[in-house]
């Protein structure tokens, strides 16, 4: 199907609401959890002006996780969009680290919607049937995804780690990308940490000004001519102190944008690791083939170039019979044939992987550059808004002070 036929062009998707539910979990214990309402509506309907009621269903965060795991396993050559964080991290003190906190839930709702929109606008991911039924099939989706057997296809961590250490010739570009992913993760983490601490402090600065409000008010009570000016200046100080809440809430949105790319860095690295794994498996197959070929040569010419225990024992206990040698040769031939098939196959896989993955990585790079630039711009806009508020409040205060 055409690459421009994104799901998102046909269907409006949103995560409209969040609700608390209680129920019994797997070990029959009572638990409270949040569910999110996914609403979908065909694009055409809306544009016709009829505005029908959207289809909707409720999903938990864990189901989103399942969907993403499925996508990761099924499309290891794609940079799969990340989910919003499981637990609140990089919090500054006023923000709750509690998953049940309404602000956290709200930000998670936005993050989940963003995730769905990202998947739906991806040229490959958006065509996936499991994704489609996630959006449209309330019941039975869990079984459907289970039946794909994706869990079994997942690479073990150990296998992946092993490949990372032992691979000899990974594609340079992927090695660089992986390094970039490491750096991106490190620097965004640092930025989020620093930002959270600065937010904490800024909160303190603004809130202490609230005390001006209180003291001015008390002071105005004992003054005659100064009273009015002081009293009204005090109100502006209160307004100033209160304004920081909105400011920091907006900044939190910026932090969320950074977080998305923090997690994207991980997805990028996952693709690179998968490349290392496929490359490694190719190398292993090639190495195996080479060694088998060498064994055949030695057996055919009678020279032993490579050390083998079998060779040593046969030297000590006598050569094998010509019939035995014949049998061995035959076996080796078969193995070599199979080995060559395997190498060819794996080589094909590797090339295929590199091709597809690199296309998606380029797509991701463009998206990242665009999104993060937008984020920086929106940060600047936030700062401007904060400055404008500050100018207004202090100008007002100045007027009141001059009437003291």
């Amino acid at each position, binding site marked *: 199907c055409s690459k421009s036929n994104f799901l998102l062009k046909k269907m409006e998707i949103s995560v409209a609401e969040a609700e608390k539910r209680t129920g019994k979990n797997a070990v029959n214990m009572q638990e409270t959890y949040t569910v999110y309402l996914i609403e979908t509506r065909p694009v055409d309907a809306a544009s016709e002006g009829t505005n029908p009621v959207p289809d909707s269903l409720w999903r938990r965060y864990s189901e989103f996780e399942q969907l993403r795991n499925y996508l990761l396993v099924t499309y290891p050559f794609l940079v799969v969009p990340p989910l919003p964080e499981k637990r609140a991290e990089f919090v500054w003190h006023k923000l709750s680290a509690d998953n049940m906190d309404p602000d956290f839930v709200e930000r998670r709702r936005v993050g989940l919607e963003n995730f769905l929109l990202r998947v739906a606008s991806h040229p490959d991911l958006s065509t996936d049937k499991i994704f489609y039924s996630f959006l449209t099939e309330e019941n039975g989706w869990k079984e459907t995804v289970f039946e794909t057997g994706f869990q079994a296809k997942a690479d073990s961590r150990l296998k992946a780690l092993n490949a990372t250490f032992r691979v000899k010739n990974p594609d340079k570009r992927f090695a660089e990308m992986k390094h970039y992913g490491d750096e991106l993760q490190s620097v965004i983490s*640092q930025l989020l940490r620093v930002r959270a601490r600065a937010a904490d402090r800024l909160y303190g600065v603004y809130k202490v000004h609230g005390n001006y409000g209180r003291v001015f008010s008390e002071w105005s009570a004992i003054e005659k001519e100064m009273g009015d000016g002081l009293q009204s200046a005090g109100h502006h100080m209160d307004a100033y102190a209160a304004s920081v809440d909105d400011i920091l809430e907006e900044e939190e949105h910026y932090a969320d944008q950074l977080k998305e790319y923090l997690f994207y860095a991980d997805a990028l690295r996952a693709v690179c690791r998968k490349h290392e794994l496929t490359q490694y498996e190719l190398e292993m197959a090639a190495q195996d083939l080479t060694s088998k070929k060498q064994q055949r040569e030695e057996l055919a010419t009678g020279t032993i170039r490579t050390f083998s225990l079998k060779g040593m024992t046969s030297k000590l206990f006598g050569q094998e019979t010509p019939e035995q040698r014949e049998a061995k040769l035959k076996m080796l031939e078969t193995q070599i044939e199979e080995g060559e098939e395997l190498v060819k196959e794996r080589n094909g896989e590797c090339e295929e992987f590199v091709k597809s993955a690199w296309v998606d990585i380029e797509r991701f790079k463009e998206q990242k550059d665009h999104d993060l630039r937008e984020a920086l*711009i929106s940060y600047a806009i936030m700062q401007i808004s904060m400055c404008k508020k500050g100018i207004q409040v202090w100008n007002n205060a100045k007027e009141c002070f001059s009437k003291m």
Partner: protein
Amino acid sequence: MSGSVVDNTVSSGNSSAAIPTDISGQILDLDEDDDLEVFSKDTTLTDGSSFNASMQTSPASMINQYKFEEDADTKDIFVTVDNPESHVTAIETYITYRVMTKTTRSEFDSSEFEVRRRYQDFLWLKGRLEEAHPTLIVHPLPEKFVVKGMVERFNEDFIETRRRALHRFLNKIAEHPIFSSSEDFKIFLTAASGELTSHKKQGPGFLSRMGDTVKAVAAAVRGVRNRPQEFTEMQEYVEAFSQKISSLDKVTQRIVREQKEYLEELKECGPTYALWSQSEEELAEPLKNVAGCVDRCCKETEEQVKNLSDQLIPVLHEYVLCADTLKAVLRRRDNIQADFEAKTEALATKKADRDTMRDDLDKAEDRLEWANNALKSDWTRWQKVMRTDLRSAFVDTAERNVSYYEKCLAVWESFLHSQRTDAEGNGKVDFS
């Protein structure tokens, strides 16, 4: 001092733990003032001998002296304090300040003077003025030491802050209708160091001061019986004012602390963006740009904090000290009244020496009337000055805050502008 301060009452009602109670560290060393209080340059020693020579001694004319009309346009004396210099002797190290005077007043021999004075000399002047006018309000001097956070008495910031305060002190004296014509003030401004030293040695001897102190303490212990309502109201006002101005001082100091901590964190943001830019290609330029913006905002924040410390806090602090001065003045007035009441009683009860006692009583009555009028007039003047000072200090602070935000605004707007120009060139970004 006041316990009603800073802390947990965040206006949003949020019980955030961000602002803990912390009044403890704010104690300032005030024993200098206490000393001045006890070795009273106050009460009953005012038997006329230490009055300014140019003042007449009849009560009626004394009362007429206190016409506090101020013609601002006719300011005829200008005093500056600057140029601190360090002096090292075998015994001690100390700082002197240059005091320059320009004046058209006839009682000055010349129109320009330049002398060097040390803190002790200022203390002396203040003491003399209080001695001569126990119920007038002398502007406070900066304290001898600041205990908290000050390690080295002679560090630059401390010296500069003190210099400014000394400058304000002398100007307040010069602007005061009574103090500015004080002989001691004139000598302070004009005498060479040696002259000043010998002049300082004059005045009531130690023993006579001790005798007067005993009388003063006795009067204080006796207490005043029929304090007029207006002075009670004054006292209540001063109590409340003292609390409020102390709170403001503490709040402002707290703001400075929080700003400094904010600045510490903000200083790490710029470098982090710069570090990030090193890993990027397309994003390198905007990231470096943002790093630059954050760094510039840091500089502005630093300056804003400095302004707050240098401008607003010293003024608030002076008015904290003023409040203490007012309390002392009210106490001295009370003591004068107590003395008068005691003498009235004595006359009523004792039989001997009635003539001397009546004489004493008359003098005490005159002193009291004079002290009350002096205080009332100076009180009005002080309130005007306080109002002007605090108003301009707060207006100034507000202006600086506006300027701070305007500068930061410009920084971020220039960033936006650079991104727009870039984007329009590349046709990439949508600014809707």
